[in-house]
Protein backbone atom coordinates (compact mmCIF):
# COMPACT_ATOMS: atom_id res chain seq x y z
CA UNK A 1 0.00 0.00 0.00
CA UNK A 2 1.17 3.45 -0.88
CA UNK A 3 0.15 6.83 0.40
CA UNK A 4 -1.31 9.24 -2.14
CA UNK A 5 -2.24 12.88 -2.03
CA UNK A 6 -5.21 13.73 -4.21
CA UNK A 7 -6.61 17.09 -5.21
CA UNK A 8 -10.25 17.22 -6.20
CA UNK A 9 -11.46 20.32 -7.96
CA UNK A 10 -15.20 20.86 -7.86
CA UNK A 11 -16.70 23.48 -10.16
CA UNK A 12 -20.22 24.58 -10.97
CA UNK A 13 -21.24 23.34 -14.42
CA UNK A 14 -20.99 26.04 -17.09
CA UNK A 15 -24.79 26.05 -17.47
CA UNK A 16 -25.25 26.90 -13.76
CA UNK A 17 -25.14 30.58 -12.86
CA UNK A 18 -22.51 31.42 -10.22
CA UNK A 19 -23.75 34.36 -8.11
CA UNK A 20 -20.56 34.33 -6.02
CA UNK A 21 -18.35 34.47 -9.10
CA UNK A 22 -20.43 37.30 -10.49
CA UNK A 23 -20.06 39.34 -7.31
CA UNK A 24 -16.30 38.82 -7.29
CA UNK A 25 -16.16 39.80 -10.97
CA UNK A 26 -17.97 43.06 -10.13
CA UNK A 27 -15.54 43.69 -7.28
CA UNK A 28 -12.59 43.11 -9.63
CA UNK A 29 -14.10 45.58 -12.11
CA UNK A 30 -14.55 48.10 -9.29
CA UNK A 31 -10.83 47.75 -8.58
CA UNK A 32 -10.15 48.61 -12.19
CA UNK A 33 -9.40 45.12 -13.53
CA UNK A 34 -11.60 45.56 -16.58
CA UNK A 35 -9.64 42.88 -18.45
CA UNK A 36 -11.41 40.18 -16.44
CA UNK A 37 -14.47 38.98 -18.34
CA UNK A 38 -15.57 36.06 -16.18
CA UNK A 39 -15.06 34.67 -12.67
CA UNK A 40 -16.22 31.25 -11.52
CA UNK A 41 -15.70 30.00 -7.97
CA UNK A 42 -15.22 26.35 -7.09
CA UNK A 43 -13.83 24.20 -4.32
CA UNK A 44 -10.54 22.46 -3.81
CA UNK A 45 -10.63 19.32 -1.69
CA UNK A 46 -7.36 17.69 -0.66
CA UNK A 47 -7.36 14.04 0.32
CA UNK A 48 -4.66 11.88 1.83
CA UNK A 49 -5.29 8.17 1.29
CA UNK A 50 -3.62 4.81 0.93
CA UNK A 51 -4.17 2.40 -1.91
CA UNK A 52 -2.26 -0.16 -3.97
CA UNK A 53 -1.98 1.85 -7.18
CA UNK A 54 -2.91 5.12 -8.85
CA UNK A 55 -5.61 3.57 -11.01
CA UNK A 56 -7.48 2.36 -7.95
CA UNK A 57 -7.04 5.74 -6.30
CA UNK A 58 -8.71 7.49 -9.21
CA UNK A 59 -11.46 4.90 -9.32
CA UNK A 60 -12.13 5.30 -5.61
CA UNK A 61 -12.03 9.10 -5.59
CA UNK A 62 -14.38 9.21 -8.58
CA UNK A 63 -16.82 7.17 -6.54
CA UNK A 64 -16.43 9.58 -3.58
CA UNK A 65 -17.10 12.50 -5.90
CA UNK A 66 -20.28 11.10 -7.33
CA UNK A 67 -21.54 10.04 -3.89
CA UNK A 68 -20.61 13.03 -1.76
CA UNK A 69 -17.90 15.46 -2.82
CA UNK A 70 -19.75 16.84 -5.84
CA UNK A 71 -23.41 17.15 -6.72
CA UNK A 72 -23.75 15.82 -10.28
CA UNK A 73 -26.82 18.01 -10.88
CA UNK A 74 -24.87 21.25 -10.65
CA UNK A 75 -21.16 20.41 -10.39
CA UNK A 76 -18.30 18.91 -12.41
CA UNK A 77 -15.15 17.55 -10.79
CA UNK A 78 -11.60 16.77 -11.78
CA UNK A 79 -9.07 14.59 -9.93
CA UNK A 80 -5.32 15.08 -9.70
CA UNK A 81 -3.11 12.49 -8.00
CA UNK A 82 0.22 13.64 -6.58
Amino acid at each position, binding site marked *: MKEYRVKVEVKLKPVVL*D*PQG*KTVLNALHNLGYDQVSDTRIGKLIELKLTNSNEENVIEQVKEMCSK*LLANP*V*IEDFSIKVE
Partner: protein
Amino acid sequence: MFNFGIILFPGSNCDHDCYHAISNVFKQSCEYIWHENKGLDRFDCIVIPGGFSYGDYLRTGAVARFSPIMREVENFASSGKPVIGICNGFQILVETGLLPGAFIKNSTTKFICKWVNIRVENNSSPFTNLLNVGDVLRIPIAHAEGNYFATEDVISKLKDNSLIAFKYCDEEGIVSNSSNPNGSCENIAGLMNSEGNILGMMPHPERCSEEILGGTDGKSIFESIISWLKNSTGSKQIKTGRF
Protein backbone atom coordinates in the same frame (compact mmCIF):
# COMPACT_ATOMS: atom_id res chain seq x y z
CA MET B 1 -55.00 12.90 16.62
CA PHE B 2 -52.09 12.13 14.29
CA ASN B 3 -48.48 11.50 15.17
CA PHE B 4 -45.92 13.82 13.58
CA GLY B 5 -42.20 13.04 13.70
CA ILE B 6 -39.67 15.85 13.49
CA ILE B 7 -36.19 14.77 12.40
CA LEU B 8 -33.30 16.32 14.29
CA PHE B 9 -29.85 16.66 12.75
CA PRO B 10 -26.90 18.34 14.42
CA GLY B 11 -27.54 21.93 13.35
CA SER B 12 -31.31 21.76 12.82
CA ASN B 13 -32.81 24.89 14.37
CA CYS B 14 -36.46 25.15 13.30
CA ASP B 15 -37.41 21.93 15.09
CA HIS B 16 -38.90 23.72 18.11
CA ASP B 17 -40.95 26.04 15.91
CA CYS B 18 -42.39 23.01 14.09
CA TYR B 19 -43.01 21.18 17.36
CA HIS B 20 -44.78 24.20 18.82
CA ALA B 21 -46.99 24.72 15.77
CA ILE B 22 -47.94 21.05 15.45
CA SER B 23 -48.58 20.36 19.13
CA ASN B 24 -49.86 23.70 20.46
CA VAL B 25 -51.53 25.26 17.44
CA PHE B 26 -52.79 22.19 15.60
CA LYS B 27 -53.15 19.98 18.70
CA GLN B 28 -51.50 16.92 17.15
CA SER B 29 -49.10 14.53 18.79
CA CYS B 30 -45.47 15.27 18.01
CA GLU B 31 -42.07 13.70 18.68
CA TYR B 32 -38.48 14.56 17.93
CA ILE B 33 -36.42 11.86 16.22
CA TRP B 34 -32.64 12.05 16.50
CA HIS B 35 -31.04 11.37 13.12
CA GLU B 36 -29.23 8.25 14.38
CA ASN B 37 -32.44 6.60 15.54
CA LYS B 38 -34.55 4.12 13.64
CA GLY B 39 -38.18 3.20 13.24
CA LEU B 40 -40.72 5.62 11.81
CA ASP B 41 -43.68 3.23 11.62
CA ARG B 42 -45.55 4.93 14.44
CA PHE B 43 -45.71 8.24 12.57
CA ASP B 44 -48.35 9.56 10.18
CA CYS B 45 -46.25 12.41 8.83
CA ILE B 46 -42.54 13.23 8.89
CA VAL B 47 -41.24 16.79 9.08
CA ILE B 48 -37.65 17.63 8.15
CA PRO B 49 -37.21 21.06 9.68
CA GLY B 50 -35.02 23.98 8.69
CA GLY B 51 -31.65 24.93 10.05
CA PHE B 52 -28.04 24.32 9.13
CA SER B 53 -27.60 20.56 9.35
CA TYR B 54 -23.87 19.77 9.71
CA GLY B 55 -23.13 23.48 9.43
CA ASP B 56 -24.02 23.43 5.71
CA TYR B 57 -20.52 21.97 5.18
CA LEU B 58 -19.65 20.99 1.60
CA ARG B 59 -23.17 21.79 0.30
CA THR B 60 -26.44 22.39 2.13
CA GLY B 61 -27.93 19.03 3.08
CA ALA B 62 -25.00 17.08 1.56
CA VAL B 63 -23.87 15.43 4.79
CA ALA B 64 -27.31 15.02 6.38
CA ARG B 65 -28.41 12.83 3.51
CA PHE B 66 -26.06 10.09 4.74
CA SER B 67 -27.55 10.04 8.24
CA PRO B 68 -29.13 6.65 8.99
CA ILE B 69 -32.53 8.28 9.40
CA MET B 70 -32.69 9.30 5.73
CA ARG B 71 -33.00 5.68 4.62
CA GLU B 72 -35.87 5.36 7.08
CA VAL B 73 -37.45 8.50 5.64
CA GLU B 74 -37.14 6.97 2.17
CA ASN B 75 -38.94 3.80 3.32
CA PHE B 76 -41.55 5.88 5.11
CA ALA B 77 -42.21 7.90 1.96
CA SER B 78 -42.42 4.79 -0.20
CA SER B 79 -45.37 3.67 1.92
CA GLY B 80 -47.23 6.74 0.62
CA LYS B 81 -47.26 8.69 3.88
CA PRO B 82 -46.55 12.44 3.69
CA VAL B 83 -43.06 13.90 4.20
CA ILE B 84 -42.54 17.66 4.32
CA GLY B 85 -39.10 19.26 4.18
CA ILE B 86 -38.94 22.93 5.07
CA CYS B 87 -35.97 25.13 4.10
CA ASN B 88 -32.89 23.02 5.01
CA GLY B 89 -35.31 20.07 5.01
CA PHE B 90 -36.02 20.81 1.34
CA GLN B 91 -32.28 21.05 0.63
CA ILE B 92 -31.74 17.66 2.30
CA LEU B 93 -34.55 16.05 0.27
CA VAL B 94 -32.97 17.37 -2.92
CA GLU B 95 -29.47 16.10 -1.97
CA THR B 96 -30.99 12.73 -1.09
CA GLY B 97 -32.58 12.58 -4.52
CA LEU B 98 -36.10 12.19 -3.14
CA LEU B 99 -36.84 15.46 -4.94
CA PRO B 100 -35.17 16.53 -8.19
CA GLY B 101 -32.79 19.46 -8.78
CA ALA B 102 -30.27 21.23 -6.56
CA PHE B 103 -29.75 24.46 -4.66
CA ILE B 104 -27.15 27.12 -5.27
CA LYS B 105 -26.45 30.43 -3.55
CA ASN B 106 -29.14 33.11 -3.78
CA SER B 107 -28.68 35.26 -6.86
CA THR B 108 -28.17 38.23 -4.52
CA THR B 109 -25.38 36.26 -2.73
CA LYS B 110 -26.98 37.41 0.54
CA PHE B 111 -28.82 35.58 3.30
CA ILE B 112 -32.44 36.64 2.79
CA CYS B 113 -34.76 36.81 5.79
CA LYS B 114 -38.09 38.40 4.93
CA TRP B 115 -41.78 37.93 4.22
CA VAL B 116 -42.58 36.92 0.67
CA ASN B 117 -45.68 35.91 -1.26
CA ILE B 118 -46.13 32.51 -2.85
CA ARG B 119 -48.84 31.35 -5.23
CA VAL B 120 -50.45 27.94 -4.88
CA GLU B 121 -49.90 25.99 -8.11
CA ASN B 122 -51.36 22.62 -7.14
CA ASN B 123 -54.17 21.97 -4.68
CA SER B 124 -54.57 18.23 -5.03
CA SER B 125 -51.70 17.24 -2.74
CA PRO B 126 -51.70 16.19 0.93
CA PHE B 127 -50.13 19.59 1.69
CA THR B 128 -52.37 21.94 -0.28
CA ASN B 129 -55.80 20.30 -0.51
CA LEU B 130 -57.54 23.02 1.53
CA LEU B 131 -56.18 25.73 -0.78
CA ASN B 132 -57.15 26.90 -4.24
CA VAL B 133 -54.82 27.19 -7.20
CA GLY B 134 -53.94 30.87 -7.44
CA ASP B 135 -54.25 31.55 -3.69
CA VAL B 136 -51.49 33.83 -2.46
CA LEU B 137 -49.84 33.03 0.89
CA ARG B 138 -47.77 35.57 2.81
CA ILE B 139 -44.98 33.58 4.38
CA PRO B 140 -41.41 34.15 5.64
CA ILE B 141 -38.21 32.85 4.05
CA ALA B 142 -34.77 32.72 5.69
CA HIS B 143 -31.98 31.22 3.62
CA ALA B 144 -28.73 31.84 1.77
CA GLU B 145 -29.02 28.89 -0.62
CA GLY B 146 -32.60 28.92 -1.83
CA ASN B 147 -31.84 29.39 -5.49
CA TYR B 148 -33.48 26.30 -6.97
CA PHE B 149 -31.80 24.88 -10.05
CA ALA B 150 -32.90 22.05 -12.30
CA THR B 151 -32.23 21.14 -15.92
CA GLU B 152 -34.84 21.99 -18.56
CA ASP B 153 -35.93 18.34 -18.75
CA VAL B 154 -36.65 18.28 -15.03
CA ILE B 155 -38.48 21.62 -15.15
CA SER B 156 -40.73 20.45 -17.97
CA LYS B 157 -41.45 17.21 -16.12
CA LEU B 158 -42.37 19.23 -13.02
CA LYS B 159 -44.66 21.43 -15.10
CA ASP B 160 -46.26 18.62 -17.12
CA ASN B 161 -47.08 16.67 -13.98
CA SER B 162 -48.15 19.68 -11.87
CA LEU B 163 -45.44 18.94 -9.31
CA ILE B 164 -44.68 22.59 -8.58
CA ALA B 165 -46.56 23.36 -5.37
CA PHE B 166 -45.69 27.04 -4.86
CA LYS B 167 -44.12 29.86 -6.86
CA TYR B 168 -42.78 33.17 -5.55
CA CYS B 169 -45.13 35.95 -6.65
CA ASP B 170 -46.17 39.48 -5.76
CA GLU B 171 -49.15 40.43 -3.56
CA GLU B 172 -51.47 40.10 -6.53
CA GLY B 173 -50.23 36.60 -7.32
CA ILE B 174 -48.23 37.68 -10.36
CA VAL B 175 -45.15 35.55 -10.90
CA SER B 176 -42.26 37.58 -12.32
CA ASN B 177 -38.53 38.14 -12.01
CA SER B 178 -39.12 40.99 -9.59
CA SER B 179 -41.10 38.73 -7.27
CA ASN B 180 -38.31 36.10 -7.29
CA PRO B 181 -36.26 36.70 -4.12
CA ASN B 182 -33.43 34.25 -4.75
CA GLY B 183 -33.16 33.50 -8.47
CA SER B 184 -34.95 30.14 -8.39
CA CYS B 185 -35.75 28.54 -11.76
CA GLU B 186 -39.39 29.24 -12.64
CA ASN B 187 -39.80 31.10 -9.30
CA ILE B 188 -40.11 27.69 -7.62
CA ALA B 189 -40.68 27.97 -3.86
CA GLY B 190 -41.94 24.43 -3.30
CA LEU B 191 -42.26 21.20 -5.26
CA MET B 192 -43.33 17.58 -4.89
CA ASN B 193 -42.16 14.15 -5.99
CA SER B 194 -44.12 12.42 -8.75
CA GLU B 195 -46.21 10.48 -6.23
CA GLY B 196 -47.15 13.77 -4.58
CA ASN B 197 -46.44 12.65 -1.01
CA ILE B 198 -43.11 14.44 -0.51
CA LEU B 199 -43.13 18.23 -0.44
CA GLY B 200 -40.08 20.45 -0.19
CA MET B 201 -40.56 24.17 0.37
CA MET B 202 -38.14 26.98 1.19
CA PRO B 203 -40.66 29.26 3.01
CA HIS B 204 -41.54 28.51 6.64
CA PRO B 205 -45.24 27.71 7.27
CA GLU B 206 -44.46 26.97 10.94
CA ARG B 207 -43.36 30.59 11.40
CA CYS B 208 -46.71 31.99 10.28
CA SER B 209 -49.36 29.85 11.88
CA GLU B 210 -50.32 32.27 14.66
CA GLU B 211 -51.46 35.88 14.72
CA ILE B 212 -48.78 36.74 17.31
CA LEU B 213 -46.09 35.85 14.74
CA GLY B 214 -47.42 38.34 12.23
CA GLY B 215 -49.35 36.04 9.94
CA THR B 216 -51.39 32.85 9.76
CA ASP B 217 -51.12 31.83 6.12
CA GLY B 218 -48.94 28.84 7.01
CA LYS B 219 -51.84 27.22 8.86
CA SER B 220 -53.51 26.02 5.69
CA ILE B 221 -50.53 23.79 4.89
CA PHE B 222 -50.59 21.95 8.24
CA GLU B 223 -54.39 21.84 8.18
CA SER B 224 -54.26 20.35 4.69
CA ILE B 225 -51.95 17.58 5.93
CA ILE B 226 -54.25 16.84 8.86
CA SER B 227 -57.33 16.83 6.64
CA TRP B 228 -55.58 14.55 4.12
CA LEU B 229 -54.54 12.16 6.89
CA LYS B 230 -58.14 12.01 8.15
CA ASN B 231 -59.44 11.18 4.69
CA SER B 232 -56.69 8.75 3.79
CA THR B 233 -57.11 6.83 7.05
CA GLY B 234 -60.79 6.57 6.21
CA SER B 235 -60.18 5.23 2.73
CA LYS B 236 -57.57 2.75 3.97
CA GLN B 237 -59.98 1.42 6.54
CA ILE B 238 -62.62 0.87 3.87
CA LYS B 239 -60.11 -0.79 1.56
CA THR B 240 -58.83 -3.22 4.13
CA GLY B 241 -62.31 -3.79 5.47
CA ARG B 242 -61.17 -3.55 9.07
CA PHE B 243 -64.04 -1.32 10.10
